[in-house]
């Protein structure tokens, strides 16, 4: 308390050390990048300052004698349904700093999670379920514009030949991809791990808006290169390095504002890849300054198609906002091959907390609305839909596909697979798990070999589960589930919610 702001003791976590178990080996001291644990020379033992604890659990995970417990600290403010402790703490902080409250990862706010209110179907008696261990099950997914109809001619050998020219497609072995996380927001060890994992799995990872390090060009067949409003790291070779190009208009965690990469995270390698000065903040403008209309977006889409000689599909990523269906329709008409929609629960490396927790709409509603709108307008085949923002497990993925997604983007789940505990302090650049940091000492905590294997295991596991769920429904291909909302039933949702989602209530 001494020499500190008076609200210092209203912190979120308490570090509890079991004195019988603690051997004062200092593993926790070395692991904590926030210096919550320290060696006390006078007392000759390890001590802790709970006010510095961010609740990342790194010390708890690595303590060799399990002596540490990180607990929520309950400061018993007088109960108040309106002025919940979290708001008090925000105000104390801002009264001290006068600044915007920064945060990281997806919104922890209790916005309805529709995945939990949707249930899947299974076959009983009247139609047979399929055992995926005994029969083939197809998860292969192609993203890109599909033709309205197919025309054939007779070839020289008398066999039919496809006359229709197909648009470029992105071929995926699983209906999911690693979502955009820029090099800079996460470090190189994880970028190389994602590249290797995506290659091994036959899916794609997205570079995010920070460019692509030259040494990763060899993984191009499994890479989506992203062009955002800051145009960081964008040049001809970059545009031609990947299997698809994505224009990032918005991000679910911060619709309406651009990316923020604090200068602390910009080291030599990031600076070179992003083409920005060392140590300077990389702030993406809120809009693309050359896009003020659907027509402008069309120009950028075709500029990128020209630059890549029409070899790869172009995706447009938007945040799920109120008029998402109309916007997606415009994007499809502007010539995009893929539209990616990021819901309100999507993650971020840094965003103002107020924006993250209050702007945007849930991905479930946005996805259903977009799929329906594109069908109603007869242009659903012209774009593939990729859903993102809070896909927690394979069941969420299956439900998203039944609601109309062609594939899903996952990122938070990928980070959790390599250790993330959602402490939401990514913006400090001091991630104790070695994820959202470019500090050489911390970044080493992600061994690319280990990280890649964890990502591969996660996708394999989800793949098996998706096959089981499909088989249970009597389907042998993910294609048969796409937009098949009859396989979903709602529990406890209102008429309006069910109408938007296009599903019946359970029991109907």
């Amino acid at each position, binding site marked *: 308390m001494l020499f500190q702001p008076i609200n210092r003791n209203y912190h979120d976590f308490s570090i509890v050390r079991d004195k019988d*178990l603690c*051997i004062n*080996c*200092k*593993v926790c001291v*070395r*692991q904590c990048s926030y210096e919550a644990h320290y060696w006390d020379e006078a007392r000759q033992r390890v001590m802790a300052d709970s006010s510095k604890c961010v609740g990342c659990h790194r010390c708890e995970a*690595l303590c*060799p*004698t399990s002596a540490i417990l990180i607990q929520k600290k309950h400061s018993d403010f007088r109960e108040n349904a309106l002025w919940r402790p979290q708001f008090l703490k925000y105000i104390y902080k801002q009264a001290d700093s006068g600044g915007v409250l920064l945060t990281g990862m997806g919104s922890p706010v209790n916005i309805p999670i529709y995945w939990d209110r949707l249930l899947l179907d299974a076959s009983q008696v009247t139609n047979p379920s399929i055992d995926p261990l005994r029969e083939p099950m197809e998860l292969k997914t192609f993203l890109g514009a599909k033709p309205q109809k197919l025309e054939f001619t007779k070839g020289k050998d008398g066999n039919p030949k496809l006359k229709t020219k197909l648009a470029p497609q992105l071929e995926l072995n699983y209906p999911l991809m690693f979502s955009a996380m820029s090099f800079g927001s996460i470090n190189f060890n994880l970028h190389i791990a994602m590249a290797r994992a995506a290659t091994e799995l036959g899916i794609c990872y997205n570079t995010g808006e920070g460019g692509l390090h030259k040494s990763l060009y060899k993984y191009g067949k499994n890479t989506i290169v992203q062009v955002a409003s800051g145009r960081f790291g964008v040049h001809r070779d970059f545009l031609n390095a990947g299997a698809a190009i994505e224009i990032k208009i918005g991000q679910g965690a911060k619709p309406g504002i651009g990316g923020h990469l604090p200068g602390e995270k910009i080291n030599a390698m990031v600076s070179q890849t992003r083409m920005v000065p060392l140590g300077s903040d990389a702030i993406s403008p809120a809009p693309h300054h050359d896009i003020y209309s659907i027509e402008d977006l069309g120009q950028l889409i075709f500029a990128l198609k020209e630059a890549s000689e029409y070899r790869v599909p172009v995706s447009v990523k938007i945040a799920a906002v109120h008029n998402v269906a109309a916007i997606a329709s415009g994007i499809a008409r502007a010539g995009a091959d893929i539209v990616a929609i990021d819901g309100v629960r999507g993650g971020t490396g840094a965003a103002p907390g107020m924006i993250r927790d209050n702007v945007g709409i849930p991905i479930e509603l946005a996805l259903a609305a977009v799929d329906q709108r594109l069908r109603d307008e007869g242009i659903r085949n012209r774009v593939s839909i990729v859903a993102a923002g809070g896909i927690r497990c394979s069941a969420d993925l299956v439900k998203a596909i039944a609601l109309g997604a062609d594939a899903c983007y996952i990122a938070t789940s990928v980070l959790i697979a390599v250790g993330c505990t959602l402490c939401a302090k990514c913006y400090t650049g001091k991630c104790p798990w*070695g994820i959202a940091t470019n*500090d*050489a*000492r911390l970044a*080493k*905590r992600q*061994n690319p*070999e*280990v990280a890649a294997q964890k990502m591969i295991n996660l996708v394999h596991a989800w793949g098996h589960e998706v096959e089981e769920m499909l088989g249970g429904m009597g389907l042998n291909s993910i294609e048969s589930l796409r937009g098949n909302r009859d396989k979903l039933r709602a529990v406890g949702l209102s008429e309006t919610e069910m109408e938007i989602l296009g599903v019946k209530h359970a029991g109907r």
Partner: protein
Amino acid sequence: MKRVYPNKDVCIGCHICELACITAHSQSKDLILAYTQERGQTGLSSCKHVHEEGPVCVALSCRHCDEPSCVAACISGALQKDPETGRTVYNREKCVGCWSCLMACPYGAISRHPLEQKIVKCDLCYDRQGGPACVAACPNKALKQEER
């Protein structure tokens, strides 16, 4: 032969390998007792040491060299090369504590016993099921036992 190789690119300097080493070479085989009691009573210490400089750290222990300088330097025959396993074997009974091996070792991988005129050196946990304790304990797979 299979040796323990450290990888400095992913060594996170947590020193957990040292704790594993102490436990594996303790009487109790219990980390808490080994660290808080045996260390002080018997001078139990780790054969492995994490060296740090700036952001770089690496855990070093005996390399079990093909032509070990320590064996050549040993005046009492306490250090021998085992032709069968390839290990550089230390015979505690024969050791006279002259420190010739300490000076000869190019890796600085041999240390003095804190209480006795003896040395402390990696034995590759030859009698431990599951191989070297440090390799098994490393949380970031920065230590690998393999043939190279």
